[in-house]
């Protein structure tokens, strides 16, 4: 710390100080519920909501509603105002049903894309599940050709087996009494445990990364105690 004044100026810089104090206050909930946490939680909610309002005007409504009407003479956009007002019918008893009209349009539009979604997202999944059990011809010069062929077939066979077992497990339409199907369902359940374990392991990475980012901010960016 060769420049104490510069260092003091840095750690007292408003933006950094606000962020650091807020971070410490919010993380303090981990140890005990306290008033400082509640205060900064409410401040964050207010800031986030205000920012949403500002961005919605500057990025969506101004360039696509206000500017076309005022500068380009596209008066027809004014007709969206009554449609938008229908959302606010939810606050009145008399016009509440009108809000369901406009929500219904949005639900319908999202639902209407499901056919394209099925064809483009789902059908390739089904197609690629039929994995070949015959190995491809070996690459020229491949000294482990037999090993590659065996592992190719075994991997694909395992993939198909696991997929069928998991699908069998989720088959709740009627009671499964057949011993083979019961074994497949039980195996599917065990594989699902494995998949959920992988999911949990990944969850730990995400959550830890967020905390590491906060510690980095406090000790590297703000206090500069740890090197950059």
């Amino acid at each position, binding site marked *: 710390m060769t420049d104490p004044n510069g260092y003091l*100026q840095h750690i007292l810089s408003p*933006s*950094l100080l*606000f*962020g650091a104090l807020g*971070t410490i206050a*919010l*993380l303090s909930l981990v140890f005990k519920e306290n008033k400082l946490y509640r*205060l900064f*939680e*409410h401040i*964050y909610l*207010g*800031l986030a909501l*205000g*920012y949403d*309002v500002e961005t919605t005007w500057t990025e969506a409504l101004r360039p*696509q*509603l206000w500017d076309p009407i005022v500068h*380009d*003479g596209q*008066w*027809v956009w004014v007709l969206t*105002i009554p449609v938008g007002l229908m*959302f*606010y019918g939810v606050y009145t008893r*008399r*016009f509440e049903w*009108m809000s369901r*009209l*406009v929500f*219904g349009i*949005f*639900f*319908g*539009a*999202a*639902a209407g894309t*499901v*056919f394209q979604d099925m064809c483009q997202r*789902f059908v390739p*999944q089904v197609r690629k599940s039929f994995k070949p059990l015959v190995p491809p011809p070996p690459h020229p010069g*491949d000294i*482990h050709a037999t*090993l590659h062929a065996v592992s190719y077939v075994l991997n694909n066979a*395992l993939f198909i087996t*696991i997929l069928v077992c998991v699908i069998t497990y989720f088959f709740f339409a009627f009671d499964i009494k057949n011993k083979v199907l019961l074994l497949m369902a039980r195996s599917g359940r065990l594989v*699902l*445990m*494995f*998949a*959920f*374990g*992988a999911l949990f*392991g990944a969850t730990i*990475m995400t*959550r*830890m990364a967020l*905390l590491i980012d*906060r510690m980095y901010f406090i000790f590297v960016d703000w206090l500069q105690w740890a090197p950059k």
Partner: protein
Amino acid sequence: MKHFFQPINFHEHPGAFYGHIVLGLAVMFGVLGILQAVPRQYRKWIIAVFTFLGGLFYVAEFFLPAHSGKNSLNKYDDVVANIFVVVGAYAIGLGVISLLQLHVRKVVRTAPGWGNSAALIISFLGMTVFGLLNEYAPHRLLFHGRLFSQGIRVTNSSVFDFLFTGGIANFGSAIFSMIAFFIASAAYRAFRVRSLESSLLMTAALIIMLGSVGFGTILTNWLPLGNDPKSEFWANFRIENIAQWLLLQVNTPAQRGILFGITLGELAMALRLWLSLERGSYFDKEV
């Protein structure tokens, strides 16, 4: 008819401009008035028709045969998208009103926690005002002076930066990073060898964790990387390769099985929504 909706130069024909707006709004509010006047028993049918029409465009656009890669409805995709952007943006007020209703009531009645509600309202107004000022007049000077023998200039832009970069960017991250502590505690308490299933869950999590960081990679770093054909076989036993294999060959088919079930459910749900067959507290509510 198409001519009626054409843009009108406001400076050249102000009368026509305002006339069209007034007429258009009158027609729209007239339609809404007619809808409001419809007997109550037909309202659910009207909602069902609007929902159906909302989805019909995209369904028809997908199924209509295409010539040279496009069909007759494709040219309206951009118009529909822009309408949805504008109408969707109007919904921002719903969140604002709901939140402010609750907190303003608390402040007015000085209910317990009213100080926090006041902080919320002040920060909401501050962010909205300075966000807009940052957009329209970012360099306008608000304060210029000296503090602790340092010259300081406060502009709209610097206040916005204080609120966004100092506030939102850090606070949002801090709130969600709290979960890390609880996850660590949960992992310690949940990962116990109680049954075959819990052991599998624990083993999977540990292998994935070990395979993704240097700590785990070091354990099998004595095995070759597999860059040449001779060492390729032994490289398969490196922990990161085992983790990748498990993710691709065990996790993937399991996730695909789940995906099949979810996607079929999504299709059923989408059809029920589109055809207004869905039941539940929202859809069964009296209109």
